[in-house]
């Protein structure tokens, strides 16, 4: 990793030096954008070369493929803790790397959120001023979006999923490590935005503001392009693994629901994220070469950007939501000792959402004026998503019906999500209605809605997953008292924070504003109070994770009495997971009397 950093920095400086604008440069800003973008990509490529990401293909290219010992070395065999800082192909190592990476991103994004809410405690925006505030809003947004995309499929899709399907590793272990380290290179790139003057746009980076923006925008653009590569690789890897490497006897109707939900999520991501990448590439060329894709002066259009963005942006929120819900569906049967209610309805729910989600994107553009006649059809497709979403509720509720829920940490999230997704879903229906959206679009109501779904539902599901799989990933139990405390602080704080925000939005407060009219001050102050409770809760959770990881109670092999395959292996999980890959004869939901 050290080599990677050094080589990456060398490449970055070399690229910038080669392309930097000087006194004679015409089009100074175009050239500066070019130099900065080149430096950022050079950093990424240089780091990957330095860390040895390309050893495998390179050796294959020169006809000296890696030997078995070398592959074992690459898999981290016998290297102890150092393998977490290296290019390691063991999916369990990659899972832990993603876990720590996601936690770091949530911490950074969360700190930004606390700064935003602190500023919004009172009207006037004097705490940090408009430039920093606007940058905070945009960078908080993109940090959290990236974190949320990988929060469940990163740690658990990598660590747990292959064991769960009875495989020894993923289909493409080297690409697995690549997907993590590519993402890693994006993190300093994103952070560099702060040193380059921030960004004036939200995370949606609408043109023409994004083309007009200062040097910090290049960091955003480069982050997305790099991240899109990481996601494409990871998504393809997960899909290939689940399709081809299930253990003998694991027919599709015996696959754990977490695997189904995650696979559908990444399969949705594969067509979606390239359009975001494309949108950003065009923003970059507009900034560097004046290509004018989004410039109405030369025949381009900002609406082109909006379409490209939202064709990604809507599927993307379901990419985020599906794994979180799938985790809860995996957890519920274990803690009520009943089968998952209607596995088929769950699959249909996930499939329906994934399928419909590619048909709804222009509901983000109802008031853009691009083609009002098409608002109607998009309204219809958007409202139809409520039906498969309802099936997901049916499955969760049907599973807990007539059961006695064992309220250990993983189970708390299920009840929180039932509440949060209900509110998020219903308010989503209001927003999907065009006349209602005429008022609500661009207000804090929208912000509250998507925080309820992405944070209240998806993040809560992922944290439940952490509590559930903590024993298998760390060998220890997550501290229950601390976990409960964190749960109450975050969830109660969350309600105060965002219910207050719904009201401010209904009253007419626009979103992304550093200052607001005094009529909104009451609910903003309340929201900020809620935010501090949430922040406290997450700090407690962080403490709990770190403390339990180091000193928590040693966990038995199967503390929850669950029936999925990951609980049949000991901790530390052997390098290749199983001595003999299992043969499956039933689905993992055989709980309950009479089963």
């Amino acid at each position: 990793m050290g080599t990677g950093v050094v080589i990456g920095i060398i490449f970055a400086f070399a690229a910038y030096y080669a392309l930097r604008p000087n006194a004679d440069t015409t089009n100074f800003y175009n050239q500066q954008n070019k130099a900065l973008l080149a430096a950022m990509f050079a950093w990424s490529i240089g780091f990957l070369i330095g860390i040895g990401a390309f050893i495998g293909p390179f050796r294959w290219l020169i006809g000296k493929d890696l030997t078995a010992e070398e592959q074992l070395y690459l898999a981290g065999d016998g290297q102890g803790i150092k393998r977490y800082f290296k290019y390691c192909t063991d999916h369990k190592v990659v899972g832990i790397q993603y876990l720590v990476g996601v936690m770091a991103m949530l911490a950074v994004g969360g700190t930004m959120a606390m700064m935003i809410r602190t500023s919004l405690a009172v009207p006037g925006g004097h705490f940090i001023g408009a430039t920093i505030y606007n940058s905070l809003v945009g960078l908080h947004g993109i940090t959290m979006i990236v974190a949320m995309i990988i929060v469940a499929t990163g740690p658990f899709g990598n660590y747990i999923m292959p064991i769960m399907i009875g495989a020894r590793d993923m289909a493409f272990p080297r690409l697995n490590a690549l997907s993590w380290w590519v993402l890693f290179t994006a993190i300093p790139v994103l952070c560099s935005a702060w040193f380059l003057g921030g960004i004036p746009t939200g995370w949606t980076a609408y043109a023409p503001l994004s083309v007009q923006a200062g040097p910090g925008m290049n960091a955003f653009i480069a982050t997305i392009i790099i991240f899109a590569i990481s996601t494409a690789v990871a998504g393809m890897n997960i899909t290939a693994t689940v399709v081809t490497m299930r253990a003998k006897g694991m027919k599709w109707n015996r696959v754990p629901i977490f695997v189904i939900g995650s696979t559908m999520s990444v399969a949705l991501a594969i067509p979606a994220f390239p359009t975001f990448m494309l949108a950003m590439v065009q923003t970059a060329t507009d900034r560097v070469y004046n290509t004018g894709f989004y410039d109405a002066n030369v025949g381009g259009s900002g609406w082109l950007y909006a379409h490209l963005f939202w064709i990604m942006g809507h599927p993307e929120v379901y990419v985020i939501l599906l794994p979180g819900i799938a985790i809860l569906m995996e957890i519920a049967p274990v803690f009520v000792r009943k089968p998952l209610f209607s596995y088929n309805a769950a699959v249909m729910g996930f499939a329906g959402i994934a399928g419909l989600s590619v048909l709804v994107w222009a509901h983000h553009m109802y008031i853009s004026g691009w083609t009002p006649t098409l608002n109607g059809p998009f309204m219809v497709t958007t409202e139809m998503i409520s039906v498969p979403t309802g099936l997901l509720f049916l499955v969760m509720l049907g599973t807990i019906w007539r059961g006695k829920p064992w309220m250990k940490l993983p189970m708390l999230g299920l009840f929180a999500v039932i509440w949060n997704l209900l509110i998020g879903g219903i308010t989503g229906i209001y927003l999907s209605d065009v006349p209602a959206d005429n008022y609500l679009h661009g207000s804090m109501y929208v912000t509250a809605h998507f925080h309820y779904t992405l944070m209240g539902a998806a993040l809560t599901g992922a944290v439940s997953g952490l509590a559930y799989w903590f024993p298998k990933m760390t060998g220890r139990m997550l501290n229950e008292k601390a976990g409960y405390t964190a749960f109450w602080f975050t969830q109660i704080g969350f309600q105060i924070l965002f219910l207050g925000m719904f009201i401010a939005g209904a009253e007419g407060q626009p979103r992304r504003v550093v200052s607001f009219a005094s009529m909104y001050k009451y609910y903003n102050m309340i929201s900020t109070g809620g935010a501090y409770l949430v922040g406290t809760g997450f700090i407690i959770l962080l403490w709990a994770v770190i403390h339990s990881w180091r000193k928590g109670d040693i966990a038995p092999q199967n503390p929850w009495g669950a029936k999925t395959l990951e609980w049949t292996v000991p901790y530390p999980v052997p390098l290749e997971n199983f001595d003999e890959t299992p043969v499956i004869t039933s689905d993992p939901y055989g709980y309950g009397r009479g089963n």
Partner: protein
Amino acid sequence: MTTQNPNPSSNPSSNPSSAHEDQQLAPTPGQRVTTLLKRTDVKRTLIFGIFWTAVFVVLGLYAYPKWMPEVMSTDMKAMERIIVGFTVISAPIAGLVLGIATQALTNRHKGNTPPPDGPAIRTNGPVVIVWSIVSGIFCLIAVVWGLVELNTFANAATIDERTALHVEVTGSQWVWSFKYPDLGVQSDKLMLPLDRPVFFDVTSVDVNHSFWPLQLGIKVDANRLQTTHINTTPDKLGRIDVKCAELCGLYHAYMETTGEVMTTADFDNWVTTNGGHIA
């Protein structure tokens, strides 16, 4: 275990336990309902469900209208009706979902060992079908209502244009300006006459903005070198707040202005005072 056991029925009243089955008639639907209602979990779900339904009904009927601004046009009225209506319609759904969840919480297992096994219910065909159909119906209601409202807007657009007032709205970083081309007036405040249809032609000179006169219940983006259109008819006197609803750079938060819906006489007065001529 390679085969699944047939599902035990989830409705106990349809399983006669006596050995003299041939002498017992199958329970009537009325009897099934009564037996169902005797179950603790069903009773609790009903009570909690009614509570949560009431919460959402109060939210829709009382809270939302209180929070939202003055209703000063038919569009705003339609919009408020939708929000109130959708909240009340969704109330029984919320009631059912939260009722089941609350009930499950009251039945939670305490202790450090796993709870006893629950009934091995893998699915319930009729429940899945009924749930899907009912949610489809709710979806249909929302869709039809929305399409009807959209159609109303579209019709309004064709009928009123000849007598309408035209206002050209220009967004620029970071101010709104309003031009009344037929009247020869320009203003940074949005003054409108009561009960006269107004057509807004909206554009931007730089980046994307979004024209949002709160109390009129309409909104449309302002794009560079494009003109977007929106129309409404203000039907109540009073103050209008105009805000920008699309992040447009540094001072987006301050890109707001006010206006007023005034009587035709007052409006004509305003026009002539500001150098214009009455059409």
